[in-house]
Every structure is written in C-alpha cells, then in structure tokens.
C-alpha cells in the first residue's frame, strides 16, 4: 500500500491518547464523598491489568477509529501492477509527451530536469499505453510515434524513447505551444480506435511567458483528453534581453550617425537593473543601460566600427539570449525600366511621377532607368529588372524585350496617354490592328467598379482607404476588352469602360491603364493612392517579400530571384545549399548568414519572445480553458513530478479513503453504543446484580 499524503500517518500517534486516558481516567476524575477517612490509609491508584481488561473493547474501538481516520487522510492506494493498470474499459491511455526544446530551455539545468521528467514519465507507462514522444519549439517534431511504440518490444519501449530523447538538445528557436499541443492532439486522436480510450497530453516545459499559444483559445476539445503541464524551473529568474528595432531608422534621418535602436527588456522577477551593452573589448565600446525589473527601454547604439556585427549584453542571470547580431542596413536594390521618350523633368509626362513615387527607403532602393527610343536594352537588364513601364515611343525591340520580360513572370505596365497607345499595346501583345478610341467625358470620369480582390487594389480593400471618388479622370480611352485575350478588368469607369486591365502574358502579364496618371489625363498621380498602387504593382511583379533587416531563428530567408543557385554559409561555418525556389529554411542558429555568390548577408537573431523567461501567468493559461485534470496542473503549482501525478490518478480511481472514513463512522457508532451501555451500568450498579 502506498500513501499520497503519508504525513497524515503521524495522526495515528493520537491513539496514544485513548490508551493513556484508559489508564488514568478513573483515578483522576471521580470524587467519592465518604463519611470518614479515619480508617483509611492512602494507597497509590494502581493501573491494574484488570482495569484495562474491563474496557479493552472500548479502547480498541477508539484506537481503530483514530487509525482509520489517519489512514484515510493519508489517502492510501495500492500501486497497480503494470499489467492491470488498464482503464475501466481495459484500454491503456493514449499519451503524448511534449518536450520543450526552445532556446529558453538552455538555461541552467532545465534540459536535464525536462529529460528526467520525460524519462520518469516514459518508465511509468504500462504495456497497454500508446505513447508518442515529441519535441517542440517553433514547430513540433515527432521523436517516437505511436506506431513505432507499438511495434517495439514492451520492455524496450521506454529505453528506446529515452535514447531518442537523449540525442536531442535544446535549440535556438522560439516556443509555439499552441501548434505543438494541437499536433499532439492530432497524433493521439487521429489514431483513435473503435473504443475511445483516455488521451493525455503531457507538456514538459519551462512554461515561459513568451511562449505562443496560437490556436488554443476557444478550441473545441474532444472528451477524454486531458492536458497536463510538468514545468521545470530555473533557480534564477532574472533575464534581460536586447532586441534590435530594425526598420525604425528612417525617422532618424537627421542623425548622420545612423544610430541603431536597441530595446533592452528586463524580466519582472529580475534582481539586477544595471546592464552593459558592449560591441568590443575596448572600454568605450559599450553603453550602460538601466532598466528596472519588468520594464524595457530603448537605447541608441552608435554606428558600429567596421567588423563589429554583434552586441553583447552582460549583467543578467541567463546568457543564452545575450548576443544580438546586427548589420548596418543594406537596402535592397530593385531595378525598374522605363521605356519611352519622356523627359526627366517633364511634369506632364509619366516618368516624372514615376521617379517621385519610388522614393528610397532603408529597405529598398528602386532604381529607375529610363530608356529612350534609340537605347538598346540588354537581355540581362530585363532579367534583373523587377518592373517595366512602357511609355510613349517605345521601339519594337524594346517592346519585344518587355514582352519576353512579362512572359518570364513579371509585369509590364502601360499607361495609355492617347488612342495611339493602343497600337503599341497591339504590338506588345502581338494583336495586330488593335485600336482604341478617345472616350467622351463630360466634366470628369470616376472609377466606379474596383476589384479589391486583385493584388493591385488589395491594399485599399479596407473601407477607410477604398474611396477613389476624389480621383477625377478628364480623359480616357475606350478599349474593347473582348479583343484582349484573357483580359481581366480590375477597375472600370462609371460608363463601364475598362479603366485598368490585367492581360495575362506567359507567366506574367501586362497592366494597362486606359487613362494615364499624368495631370493632363487625371488626378491619379497627385492622389494619395498613387504610391501604394505603384508599389502594389511592383510587389506583384517582383514577387519579393517585404525586405527585412533581420530574421529570427526558424524564419525562411528568401533570396533574390535569379538564375544562379545560392549556397548559404551558416554562422558555424558550414555551407548549406539553398533550394531551387531561393528559399533557405535552415536558420537554426543566431548569427550572420552569408549567401554566395554575391556575399548577401542576413542577420538571424533569437526570437525576442524567447527572452521573456518569467513563468507564464496562471490566468493566461486558465483563460485557454484547457481540459486539465486538476488544479495543480497549472504551471505555478505543478511542483509534483510525474510519478506523483500518476499516484494521484491511481488514488483518485481507488478512493480507499472513503471506505476508511466509513469504517471510522461505523466504529464510532459501535463505540458510542458500548460506552452508553457501560455508563448506564455504572450509574445504576444495583440494576445489574
């Protein structure tokens, strides 16, 4: 027999009470008046065996009552042998063990603790249990699936899984608990057999504040599944972290030094408040930061010296997140080709507004190269260009290059400045005899129907931005969309004439404006919609994701598209090939990644959420309404180990304490009856003889 709360067994010592009372009660309590003591000699009251025998049954009952109560409070249970630990229905549990391998688990001995708990849990399983072992950080990974568990010999299952786990070390990724729990649920319920058995998900984690709980809110949990948290704890909870606030630098345009903004956050449980940010060994290569516990502050780091690409934070308890990698901003160059005869400073031409629409940003430099009618455009220029705008007066060769450009998957933009532009459009699309006429516009025309589903207008889909009625069109051309194969009208005037069309061409397409953005034709170039619209076209054409100054561990790095294949050199010096799509997913270390050829450098930092190492607030977890088994499943209270939890389960099932309390009550009733009888006999001794 085992006990859940063995300390209560000390209560059994209380049986000494009745024994003592039975020995001394008679001498102390009763006072008998007697006529005279002149013939009596004092004799010590003796504790005779006779006096004990008289009330032996009563004493025995009283002791048994106390013993039963003490046993009941100690919550006894019988350790079930593994062969019969089956549930009521003869089915084992379906157990999913999730072990956190995120970066925060690198602290102190957390990983050792987690390993220990997982091992205990694995060894406590029964042959009937179906177990799957997963590790998780940003994404879950299955170490041992149920099929493999099932096919392994019973005595080899746990050791095998433990071996698998022993080969794992915490990485540098962030934590996404939500995805992991849902995946675990899939694993244990996906393989559900005809008889539903009890499912349990055990999460072994440091339960840090920064873990993501996506998808758990409001999740409809199937019955029979419980989630239990086994948290591991670090002794030192203080942690500070530095985060590079990349992207905010343009606001400091006046600042010639290009200072980098770094946010220092300090944990709520931190004891220290003073930290040092250093970028070199020299005494002046560093800054002191004062951050009170639970707060954060932004400091400006001056431009780093040549060769320095990291900041080191010192002064806090956990150092796994104390290195911050930095690179001076490297704006991406985006070549755009303008084909046409527009003068650079002609305010009535298209080019003038095109140049002003694409301003330089820290992330991106759009380089517009205008090609006059006579300029030849090399094939590699078209290959590198992300967008081609066709103005008036483009030559056949240029149009052919633009056609090929569009067929390769990009977009060519053609604003029609006059009905004559239709002829150039016909040549571009290879539709001979394509014509357009000047529309008759009374006062002005407006865009009446806009397809906000299209990538061009998607940025304006929000009702706050979808008002195009301020943009007046004085002149526009009437096109016959039916003559353009596959043409998609993205916007049309109130006269139902197409205003903006997308004509597919090969892998890409041509965007045709029935009216140009020049002020003689419309107010479009002067409106606030112009710049987002052109950027939407550029993004649609290039297919590049938004430029990022830094990546986080686990993010995919997207390399600029091109014919060449890249090799990525990771911070640890190893080379990894980049897949054909130009996407590199192997960012499993923080540091500087270098893509060759071209020496493209990328910064990969630790997920800043991972640095929030304070324990997850209990109410946040409670708000998720997870099907936890009991209160002590909450992270703050889950001090008990896995063995204790299974003991609690067993005890809960057996509920032996009920029988013990019942026995105590019955014994008390018998004791009361016997004592009452004895009392009656004593009070009326004449009645008995």
């Amino acid at each position, binding site marked *: 027999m085992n006990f859940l709360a063995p300390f209560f067994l000390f209560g059994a010592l209380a049986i000494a009470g009745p024994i003592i009372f039975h020995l001394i009660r008679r001498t102390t309590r009763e*006072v008998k008046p007697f006529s*005279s003591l002149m*013939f009596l*000699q004092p*004799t010590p009251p*003796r504790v005779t065996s006779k006096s004990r025998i008289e009330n032996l049954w009563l004493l025995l009952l009283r002791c048994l009552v106390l013993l039963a109560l003490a046993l009941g409070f100690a919550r006894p249970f019988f350790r079930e042998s593994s062969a019969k630990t089956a549930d009521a229905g003869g089915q084992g549990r379906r157990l999913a063990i999730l072990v956190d391998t995120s970066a925060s688990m690198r602290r102190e001995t957390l990983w050792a603790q987690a390993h220990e708990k997982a091992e205990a849990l694995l060894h406590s399983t029964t042959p009937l249990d179906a177990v799957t072992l997963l590790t998780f950080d940003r994404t879950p990974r299955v170490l041992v699936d149920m099929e493999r568990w099932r096919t392994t010999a019973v005595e080899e299952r746990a050791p095998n899984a433990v071996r698998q786990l022993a080969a794992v070390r915490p990485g540098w990724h962030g934590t996404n608990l939500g995805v992991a729990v849902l995946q675990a649920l899939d694993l244990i319920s996906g393989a559900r057999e005809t008889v539903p058995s009890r499912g349990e998900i055990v999460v072994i984690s440091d339960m840090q504040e920064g873990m993501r709980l996506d998808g758990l809110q409001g999740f409809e949990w199937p019955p029979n599944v419980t989630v239990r948290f086994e948290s591991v704890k670090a002794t030192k909870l203080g942690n500070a972290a530095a985060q590079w606030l990349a992207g905010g630098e343009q606001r400091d345009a006046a600042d010639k030094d290009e200072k980098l903004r770094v946010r220092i956050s300090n944990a709520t449980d931190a004891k220290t408040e003073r930290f040092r940010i250093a970028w070199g060994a020299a005494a002046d290569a560093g800054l002191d930061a004062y951050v009170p516990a639970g707060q954060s502050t932004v400091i400006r780091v001056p431009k780093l010296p040549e060769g320095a690409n990291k900041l080191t934070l010192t002064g806090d308890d956990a150092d796994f997140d104390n290195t911050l990698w930095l690179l001076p901003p490297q704006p991406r160059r985006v070549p755009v080709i303008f084909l046409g005869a527009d003068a650079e400073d002609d305010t009535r031409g298209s080019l003038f507004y095109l140049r002003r629409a694409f301003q330089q940003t820290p992330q991106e430099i759009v380089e517009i190269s205008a090609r006059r009618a006579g300029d030849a455009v090399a094939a590699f220029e078209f290959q590198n260009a992300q967008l081609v705008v066709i103005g008036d007066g483009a030559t056949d060769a240029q149009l052919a290059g633009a056609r090929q450009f569009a067929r390769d998957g990009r977009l060519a933009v053609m604003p029609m400045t006059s009905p004559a532009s239709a002829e150039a459009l016909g040549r571009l699309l290879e539709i001979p005899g394509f014509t357009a006429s000047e529309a008759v516009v009374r006062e002005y025309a407006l865009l009446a129907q806009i397809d906000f589903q299209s990538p061009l207008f998607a940025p304006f889909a929000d009702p706050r931005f979808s008002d195009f009625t301020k943009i007046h069109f004085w002149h526009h051309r009437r096109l016959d969309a039916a003559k353009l194969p596959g043409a998609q009208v993205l916007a049309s005037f109130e006269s139902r004439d197409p205003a903006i069309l997308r004509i597919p061409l090969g892998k890409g397409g041509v965007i045709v404006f029935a009216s140009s953005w020049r002020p003689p034709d419309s107010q479009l170039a002067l409106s606030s919609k112009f710049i987002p619209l052109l950027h939407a076209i550029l993004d649609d054409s290039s297919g590049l994701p938004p430029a990022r100054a830094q990546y986080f561990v686990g993010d995919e790095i997207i390399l600029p598209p091109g014919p060449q294949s890249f090799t990525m050199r990771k911070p640890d010096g190893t080379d990894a090939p980049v897949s054909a799509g130009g996407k590199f997913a192997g960012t499993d270390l923080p540091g500087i990644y270098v893509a060759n050829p071209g020496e493209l450098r990328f910064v990969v930092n630790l997920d800043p959420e991972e640095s929030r190492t304070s324990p997850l607030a209990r109410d946040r977890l409670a708000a998720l309404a997870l099907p936890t088994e009991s209160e002590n499943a909450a992270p703050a209270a889950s001090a008990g180990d896995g063995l204790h939890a299974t003991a609690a389960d067993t005890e809960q099932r057996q509920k032996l304490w009920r029988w013990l309390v019942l026995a105590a009550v019955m014994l008390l009733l018998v004791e009361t009856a016997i004592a009452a009888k004895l009392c009656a006999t004593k009070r009326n*001794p004449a009645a008995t003889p």
Partner: protein
Amino acid sequence: MSAAPTSTTSPQAGGASFLDPKALMAIRNLELRARTVVEGFWHGIHRSPYHGFSVEFTEYRPYAQGDDPRYLDWRLVARTDRYFIKKFEDETNLRCSLVVDGSRSMAFGSRGFTKADYARTLAATLAYFLSHQGDATGLLTFDEQVREYLPARNRPGHLRHLMLALEKPASGNSTDVATPLRRVAELVRKRSLVVLISDLLAPVEAFSEALALVTASRHEVIVFQVIDPAERTFDFDQAARFLDMETGRDLFLDPSLARADYVRRLEAHVESVRASCEGLGVSHMLLDTSKPLELALFDFLKARSVRGKLIRRKGAAA
C-alpha cells in the same frame, strides 16, 4: 422502670412484615414515619403483654391497723365488705433524653438515604413510642458541639417541637461525642434514660470518658451506633478520590487495596466502642441502616428489659 419487655416474642418472627428502610425513608414527614414504625411494631406483636412502664398494679393484701386508709380499695369494700389494701409498685414516669448525632459524617449513605435520615427516624420513632406511653422525652442534637436541646417533657405539642428539631439538617464538620455527653450530664439532673444515636466515628477514649461521666450521674444509657453497609464492607469497585465529608480531606484510593485494612480497623473501632460500653454497663447496639427500624425498637425494649431484670435481681439480692 420494671415492666421491661419480656421478649417472649422473637422479633425475628415478624421480620418479614417489617418495612424496608428505603421504603420508609420515602415518607417525607418524620412524625408519620415514626408512627408507621410504631404502629407496625404493635401490629407485629399483636396482643401486647406490655402495659407500660409507669403505674404498675402488683397485689392486694388485707388491711391491717395502721395502714393508710387512702390505699383501701373502696369498690371492693362496697362489693364484699372486706378491707383490702391495693398495693402499687413504686414507679415514676420515665424520662428519656435522645442524643442524636448531626455531624456531616452522618450525611453519608449508600442506599438512597443517609445515616442521618435513619438516625432521625429512629429518634422520632422512640420519641413517638415513649410519648404515647406518657413518658417524657427530650432531645439533644450535636455535631462538634450541642446544636439543639429540648428538655424531657410530656405535654401536648412537645412531640411536635421535637420532630421539628430533628428535621434540621446536619451541619457540623466533625463528630465530638464527648462534649454533648458531658452537657447531658450537666443538663439532665433527674435520673433518666439517655439514648445516644451516632455513628461514633470519633476517637474512643474521649467518648468512653464522657460516657463514664453520664453513667456516673446514674443515668441509664443505650448507645445506637448507626453504620451504613458501605462503611462496613467498603465495597466500592473503582479507584477514586475519596473525600472526607467532615474534614474535606481527600485521598486517592483503590478500594480493592484498601478494603481489607479498612474493614479490620473499623471492626477494631466498633469492638473498642462495644468494650468500653460494656465496661460501663451501657447497652451498645450496632445498627446497620439496611435493617428495618422495628428491629432497633426491639433491641431497645430488649435492652430495657435486660436492664430491668438486672436491677430487680440486684434489688432482690439486696
């Protein structure tokens, strides 16, 4: 003082019909209790040979010259014309003083009533019995000193006073038999019968000295020693703190251990009391409160008759 009971009828003969003391004590009124005992006693002996102790006719003798003509039986002269002198035994009324112990030790009782109840009933019974014979009865109650004193009288209402005095509760802390006996010797001048009713749980020496003083004053003394059955056998079964009712002293005792010694010492005490009584020619009667009161009355009369015979024998010898 002559016609003492001749004890022809054995008191034990009617024992079965005697009242159980417990039932008797259930009667609240002391006088009624006494009457119940006395009447039951008369019923028990049926036709009584006793005609009282006072005026006793003995014989006729022929008149001789010089005899006081007052003693001539004139009715006989008128009927037969013969002169006879009616002869009487010289007898005065009996004066009886009941000396009743009212100390706290008398408040003990194991049978549902106390020794004091028993003693009072006995005293009341004797008083009733005697006053109905026309004898004068007095009362003296005492504990460590004399509490109540009623001189021996025989007049209407006296019995009632006597009963009231008897009903007063025991209050004394200790028993001092010697002092009351000395007081009796002082107060009762005329020769009389002194009936001492007490548990006599006091040192024997002082008691026997005082008793000697009383007998020396030519009083006749009968001692009733009232003892509760529990006092005689000490048959308690549990160890307890025993509290002395008089002194308030207490003792832890295991009765099973103390019993033998106690009984031995008590019997020694009773024996020494009896010995000192017999030495002084005093009747000593040990009364168990579980025994009917009528037996006590028999004992009383028996003691009186023995004494009467003794005196007569002494007179004849003289």
